[in-house]
């Protein structure tokens, strides 16, 4: 069973979002997603300054057998990207909710967060998917 921390918000396409104390949000992919993809060999993160719409393809995660777009769960401006992943994409596998974060946004409308799944609802999505 994969880890699904409470306190985060999720999309059914397996992205997670964490609201930080400064009002920004951090985005990554879930433990379930990294497990399904297998060992990541390449991660492409968005450039700082890029404006993203909700649901826009923002990043790409690539393993030897799959490549997947990562969608932005909410709209906003990219304020940082995890450049460490360029040299060490495996961080997404080993620590998907920590050092394996992908990018940070300054949200356009923080209210959009409430439309996302909570941990419990996401756990159901994962359960469905692994059936």
């Amino acid at each position: 069973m994969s880890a699904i921390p409470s306190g985060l918000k999720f999309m059914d396409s397996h992205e997670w979002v964490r609201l930080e104390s400064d009002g920004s949000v951090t985005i990554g992919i879930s433990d379930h997603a990294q497990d399904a993809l297998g060992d990541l060999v390449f991660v492409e993160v968005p450039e700082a300054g890029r404006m993203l719409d909700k649901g826009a393809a923002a990043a790409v995660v690539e393993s030897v057998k799959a490549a997947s777009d990562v969608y932005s769960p909410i709209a906003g401006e990219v304020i940082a990207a995890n450049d460490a992943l360029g040299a060490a994409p495996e961080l997404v596998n080993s620590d998907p909710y920590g050092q394996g974060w992908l990018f940070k946004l300054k949200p356009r409308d923080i209210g959009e967060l409430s439309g996302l799944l909570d941990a419990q609802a996401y756990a159901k999505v994962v359960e469905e998917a692994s059936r």
Partner: protein
Amino acid sequence: MHEPLIFSYSRPGRVAAGQYPPVAPPLELPQKFRRRRRALLPEVSELQVVRHFTRLSQLNFSIDTHFYPLGSCTMKYNPRACNQLAMLPQFLGRHPLAPASMGQGFLACMHELQEMLKEVTGMKGVSLTPMAGAQGEFAGVAMIRAYHRARADLDRNEIIVPDAAHGTNPATATMCGCKVVEVPTLENGDIDLEALKRVLGPRTAGIMLTNPSTLGVFERRIHEVAALVHQAGGLLYYDGANLNAILGKVRPGDMGFDVIHMNLHKTFSTPHGGGGPGSGAVGVGQRLLPFLPIPLVGRKQEDTGQYRYHWLDERDLPQTIGRLSAFMGNAGVLLRAYVYMRMLGRAGMQRVAEYATLNANYLMARLRQAGFDLAYPHRRASHEFIVTLKRQEKELGVNAMDFAKRLLDHGFHAPTTYFPLLVPECLLIEPTETEAKEDLDAFVAALIAIQREAEQDAAKVKGAPYTLPVRRLDDVRAAKQLDLSYQSDRS
């Protein structure tokens, strides 16, 4: 077995002198255009070259050496005559832009090939130009797009693709500037007609289908599919990947398809060459005739009764989608297909599908009896079928990849694994018509032996292969620490 890189044989100043032109004239070249330092190519003797590449060849599995039941790839015998006759010196020496008057023999073969392909597919016109299956697909979708545009029907930019389709189908649609719409497949392997009805509409450009499908079963309601798509104003594209299953039995044109590409390297037995060259001739019905990619080969009867062959280009087909290759596609591959078709003849062409289907159904029946799970147990196999190893994966921890790798130790090339994506832990098995019964029996025996081994010693199977030049390779390292060319210590 291990063969070092050719560069390791290199010694400064060693040359295969017999291959050089006799004199070395001075270059007539201003300094600024000149190469300053020679490229890093090996400096080796002729024997070293021959020995190195002969040894490398021996590291390969191939049709000539091994049973190669790679699903959807139709690895049948490549008759040697086809190769030898396509390599007659006159054909090899012919310049592609030499006048048609100096290529009547070659052009006659190409014209007859066009005609034969029209006949076996039930189409009205054929272009031999596309250089591979994927380029044939491109030509097909580009023609569909050109057809709608010529009718000022500009909103039609959606290409419908079944979820079981080969990855080239959606990739091709994107390359042609179309949007991909997926439709699901029913549990029995047929397309979901209700879902199809929901996505059809004024934006539908066409649908891409493989029949028999990538699931190895015949789409039984193809007539209904064709009627629905045509009613909605769309056209039907036939992906010829599985044409071997129906050659001489059913013609795509009769099923209602408007355009087809053929993989000559599958159905018509031209060599796969370690991943090419292919050849992806396209055939079209009446509506798409004006859009065929050029050049085509035409002919005129002279007063003497003799035919004269000539090229047809944009002057003859002003609405063509254009040229896809610098000349006329993979001419040498086309010659091989021509020789093959002449050797099969009318009756032989029909036997292809019959015996390919017999072999597949026999192999399927034997594996079913041996206790393997079939993905579509209630359906006939076409020329290929799918075994699913989901149960073995769950119970023994041995998956399709493990079975595939262990088969290599038994001297069989593995079937296609993990395609189609819909079936978990799948082996897509295509024996082709040119394999003898005892080879099929030996393949079944190998799979049974692997199954027993998996039950007793799963780790053994998971560590396979053991007898090949290398064991399982580290794909993750290959993709992360990219080593795409040899770097010498020369700075």
